[in-house]
């Protein structure tokens, strides 16, 4: 009897002293990509990374347009102020968009539905699980519930003027059209920003203020924060006026037709 109580005591002591199994120094993604064999978690992390960087190839089942996740989540979701993906600690949370308590899974599935203009994957789809694993991997070291530094896109201050799409068109043709094309179709691997291969009207990028924040902080690519706040708002308003796939939660008939024709 004595031995067993002593044993339990030592076991409890050990349990309290051992740090949690979360790795503090986790391997970099480049290192993981070179490994010949990975365990279940890291193989899902790598798969998630591959989906983020090459969505068309690795998650084509649920994708309806020609965008990649990393077109908005720049640097595979690691760049500040460009919708970084280290947000696992922020979920679950309530969102006004669907009026529900959202887990990270539902958030990812809605990305497929709106931003990727596709089909909502089931909860247990391998693609969703892999992206969840990758988000968890990126969130390592963040504080639960606290907002990570550089989350989402910056909120632009009030410029005192309304966004002007006509002015936005001039800025777009001067600064953006060399990559995104005159008709927003996307040139040489750059993503389309309107038309039927772009995000749909339900996507977060269709919000003028969010898109303006993203454009100001990151566009033109590699030369972010070179536009003024007003220019970014103008371009965003111009993009918002263009034709793009319908919002799946509003116009069901149009959406169905789009899916059947695509």
């Amino acid at each position, binding site marked *: 009897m004595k031995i067993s109580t002593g044993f339990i005591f030592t076991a409890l002591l050990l349990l309290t002293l051992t740090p949690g199994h979360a790795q503090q120094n986790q391997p970099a993604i480049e290192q993981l990509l070179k490994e010949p*064999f990975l365990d*279940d978690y890291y193989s899902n992390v790598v798969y998630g990374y591959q989906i983020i960087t090459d969505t068309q190839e690795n998650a084509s*089942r649920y994708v309806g347009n020609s965008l990649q996740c990393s077109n908005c989540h720049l640097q595979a979701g690691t760049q500040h102020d460009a919708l970084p993906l280290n947000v696992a600690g922020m979920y679950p949370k309530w969102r006004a968009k669907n009026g529900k308590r959202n887990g990270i899974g539902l958030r990812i599935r809605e990305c497929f*539905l709106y931003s990727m203009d596709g089909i909502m994957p*089931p909860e247990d789809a391998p693609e969703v699980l892999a992206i969840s694993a990758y988000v968890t991997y990126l969130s390592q070291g963040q504080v639960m519930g606290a907002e990570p530094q550089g989350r989402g896109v910056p909120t632009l201050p009030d410029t005192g003027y309304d966004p002007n799409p006509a002015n936005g068109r001039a800025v777009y043709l001067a600064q953006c059209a060399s990559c995104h094309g005159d008709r927003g179709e996307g040139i040489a691997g750059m993503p389309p920003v309107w038309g039927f291969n772009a995000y749909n009207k339900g996507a977060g990028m269709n919000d003028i203020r969010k898109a303006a924040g993203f454009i100001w902080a990151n566009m033109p690519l590699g030369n972010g924060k070179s536009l003024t706040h007003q220019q970014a708002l103008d371009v965003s308003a111009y993009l918002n006026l263009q034709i793009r796939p319908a919002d799946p*939660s*509003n116009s069901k008939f149009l*959406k*169905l037709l789009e*899916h059947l024709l695509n």
Partner: protein
Amino acid sequence: MISKLLAEATPSFTWKARLGNWRTEVFAGLVGAMLVIPQGITFAYLAGLPPEYGLYCAIFVTLFCSVLGSSSMMSGPNTAVAILIGTAVLPLAGRGSPVYIDFVFLLCMMVGLIQLMFWLARGARIFQYLSPAAISGISAGAGFLIIMSSLDSILDLSTFKTTFFYEKFYVIITDAVDLVNPYSLAIGIVTIAGGYLGRRYSPRYFIIIAVTAGYLCGLLIAFIWPQPVTELEYLGRMPLQWLPINIPTVNMEYLMISTKLIPYAITIAFIGLAQSLVIVRELKMETDQDINLDKEVYAQGMANFLAPFFSSFAGAGSFNRTRANQSMGATTPLSGITAGGFVLILITFLGPILTYMPMAAMAGTLFIVGANMIKWGDIKHYAQVRSELVIYFSTFISIMFFGLAAGVVVAVFLSVSVFMLRISQLELKIESGVAGTVLKVKGALFYASVAHLTEKFHSHFGEDLTVDLQYTTHIDQSAVDFFVRESRHMAAHGARLTLLINDKQRDFLKELGAGTDIHLVSL
């Protein structure tokens, strides 16, 4: 021997001579392709793989099996094999993840190799010992598993996918309002109803009618409610390639882990071959096709071994598609070869339409397939003989509770036991005449059946005994030892043992040491 093996290993095309009307064959191939598309997609789902792998299986396994084989059997995705692949690989990796797919390919290569070993060992005969009741029991059990897994999709119970069926029933009954997705349930019911109504008018194409009904119902629901509300699961786009060449990943770590797959690989190889050979044997009996069973074993093994190189999983012969093929008048492998090609063409055109196919409609067809596998007629048929009924129900119940792999083991064990019991039964007849007591023995005398003799010897202890062995089919060492021992024992008590034997048996018995102590009389 080697030239015989080589002849079996190469495609023979001898069926070209008896090819009557090639149009019948090609049309049968088209029907086969239409039937296999929903099956391929749903069986890929059972195996835990993306749907395109099931279609590749329907193309390439069917093609290889028909080119290498000699019968009009339709091979391809198979229910029992798909379920077993799912249960084997699920503990090793997450459903449908790249590592999961790697392990599935490794498992299929192992299955192919084991089946090729069966071929080299001339193993086709082994499957004759598997009783028909056991095969019906396995098929009914697989049907039950299919119905259970189709309920997951029809009711949209994604969180309860892996639980036991009684837990699932409990959850459905107690929490139906919260858990069951009414949209998904509606599509499922429309599909199943469509199938059963359709069967009345067109018993051949009812699966296609069912799928169409479910698809149209899904479109109607998608038109009224948006996807975020219905939470319906759709098939999605299938990234199909015409030649999906794939080199399976094989490295040290994978091989170490895949030792866990070996028991499953053996079970899959066994159950796959058992089904294929039952079909082939039926074809051989019912038609005048020139079928070599060993060649069919080789064709199935080679097709499964090559499958991973074309992004498909292992398959086996399909009862329902072979029957449809036969009813269309196909008698040569040409129908199977064309079926593979038609799947490719049909899918290229159907792909965009299939994107919006609700998984509940696919699951509805699975439900119909599963329900068809549990046949009331089988139970009635086997109820005549008690041992057959015991085999049928033990197999079915062990599959219900312990899974398909355990059920197959039970089925094999019981069939072999019943077979052994029957073989070890001796027909003994005692005649008391002028020459003393004569014991006539019919059957095989070996270690298991000698015990029956002992009783007779004891009841006639102390008398002169003549044992008539003319109708004994087989005598082994332990039987001879028994006679030697008994004859010494009887001699010690003043009695005499005489064996009546034929010429063949005499040499054999003398060799085994029966010459000195026993009185042998040749007839």
